[in-house]
């Protein structure tokens, strides 16, 4: 009945059913699978702010489960977060912390800071001891300037000028390491991020489909959903199969089959035996 001053939940995972689950697995029951996001996610700081990039493939084992999922999550009007790892975990964690940030904004009357989001996320992940499989690239611009951080599933963080995470991180990092420099312009930054994500898309099986970009500057943001679509889906044409126009029609002759072959109706109703 007493109202809590803190709005943050204090609970972690409940492992009471561990021995029961272990016993079931030993008896042959397969545990339910989960959707991972393979993924290439990147972020970099340019002259006026932060650019985040992500691919759009979600995998369930060897199968592509979602060809165009959204991996750049909203945290605050000036903060966005890319998520790699288990899709449900990244969604839930970013939603939860986004909600906490919103309440904090109402209470303080101020814009959220990136370090606030960072601390809330890392505390949450640490509390769950790495069982929440979410690897995040957090970026935003607040009154102290542009910031970019990476957060690992166990709760450790890095602060970097450019960062990559996910299964395609090595491919993307190769691009960043060779071409990043300080003081990039917006277009240069967007091109570099696109290049890094494409490198992940084409060289990593866990990443694919399209490129999403989010540009955050002081006071404004641009969410460029499907900024680049290098893997368009081809569908069966509604016109049916048509010969290519270069084929010359030499002769058109129609021969009814009855003239060449005897068509005999067997007694009975045809289909019945």
């Amino acid at each position, binding site marked *: *009945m007493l*109202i809590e001053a803190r*709005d943050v939940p204090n609970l972690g995972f409940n492992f009471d059913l561990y021995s029961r689950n272990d016993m079931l697995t030993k008896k042959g029951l397969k545990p339910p699978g989960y959707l991972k996001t393979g993924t290439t996610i990147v972020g970099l700081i340019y002259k006026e702010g932060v650019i985040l990039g992500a691919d759009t493939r979600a995998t369930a084992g060897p199968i592509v489960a979602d060809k165009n999922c959204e991996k750049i999550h909203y945290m605050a009007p000036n903060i966005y977060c890319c998520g790699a790892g288990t899709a449900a975990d990244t969604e839930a964690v970013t*939603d*939860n912390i986004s*909600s906490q940030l*919103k*309440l904090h904004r*109402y*209470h303080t009357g101020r814009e959220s800071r990136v370090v606030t989001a960072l601390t809330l996320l890392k505390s949450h992940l640490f509390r769950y001891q790495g069982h929440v499989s979410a690897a995040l690239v957090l970026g935003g611009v607040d009154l102290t300037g542009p910031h970019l951080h990476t957060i690992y599933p166990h709760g450790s963080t890095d602060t970097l000028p450019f960062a990559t995470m996910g299964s395609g991180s090595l491919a993307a990092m190769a691009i960043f390491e060779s071409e990043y420099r300080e003081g990039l312009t917006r277009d240069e930054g967007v091109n570099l991020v696109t290049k890094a994500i494409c490198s992940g898309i084409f060289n990593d099986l866990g990443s694919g489909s399209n490129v999403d970009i989010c540009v955050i500057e002081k006071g404004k943001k641009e969410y460029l959903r499907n900024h680049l679509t290098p893997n368009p889906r081809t569908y069966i044409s509604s016109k049916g199969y048509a010969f290519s126009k270069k084929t010359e029609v030499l002769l058109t002759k129609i021969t009814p089959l009855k003239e060449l072959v005897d068509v005999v109706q067997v007694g009975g109703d045809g289909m019945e035996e």
Partner: protein
Amino acid sequence: MKCNLLILRGPGLLPLGLSFPPSQQGIAYSLHKSSSPLNIHSHFFTSSSLISSRSKVFCHICLAVISDSFRSCADFLYDMGDSQYSFSLTTFSPSGKLVQIEHALTAVGSGQTSLGIKASNGVVIATEKKLPSILVDETSVQKIQILTPNIGVVYSGMGPDSRVLVRKSRKQAEQYQLLYKEPIPVTQLVRETAAVMQEFTQSGGVRPFGVSLLVVGYDDKGPQLYQVDPSGSYFSWKASAMGKNVSNAKTFLEKRYTDDMELEDAIHTAILTLKEGFEGQISGKNIEIGVIEADRTFRVLTAAQIEDYLQEVE
């Protein structure tokens, strides 16, 4: 010779102290009135006594004066339910009223005037902001608060109580949003806030809130204005006032209100109503106005904007 001293502090009781057998040496026990109704302490002191052969034997026995009932000395475990704070402060009177809620409404009635008016294309709330002294930094005080991007609230009565409710309501709105992925409808938020206020009229050890809230919002059902009382009852109003000058303000509003009022008219009417009972010179610094227009975003007007409206009204 060993001496055992047992001191027990129970809620609302003076401590019961027993010592047997008696000792001459340094037995110190303190008599404190329990301040917190939910604490039970027990202290065990063991001290060995050096009793000389010629020392007198004397016995200390203090009996606790128990407010409700007399308990035996052997009964060391105090049941929290029997303390004087365990029952609800809001108990029915023989006439069927809850006296504490009546008193809470009196507290509201002695608070600063606040009012709200629902227009056809928006809704406005306004309140006096009389500060206790000219030395108070008026920019640090804000009575009108935002709950969600399209819902705002103002109160009459005890400020600290309203802060608790505002915090709770904001959290409930967020939880609703997280669960249903839609912004909370105004009626739902009002219902949940009213439920909290009702809880505090039917629980042990707590008192009702000393505030009435005017909640305004603009959702799919259009602009809405609700009043929530300390009892937990809520009403939807076209125009309402609360606080010190409530009867005059309500009469004024009844005369002035029309169903097809526009928001600008509503703001002017709100200012005029406040002006009616205002002691001293009204200005942008000692009233607060919050509006929701057709864009469905709640905002508090700045002092400069209020000054503009005041000039229009004159």
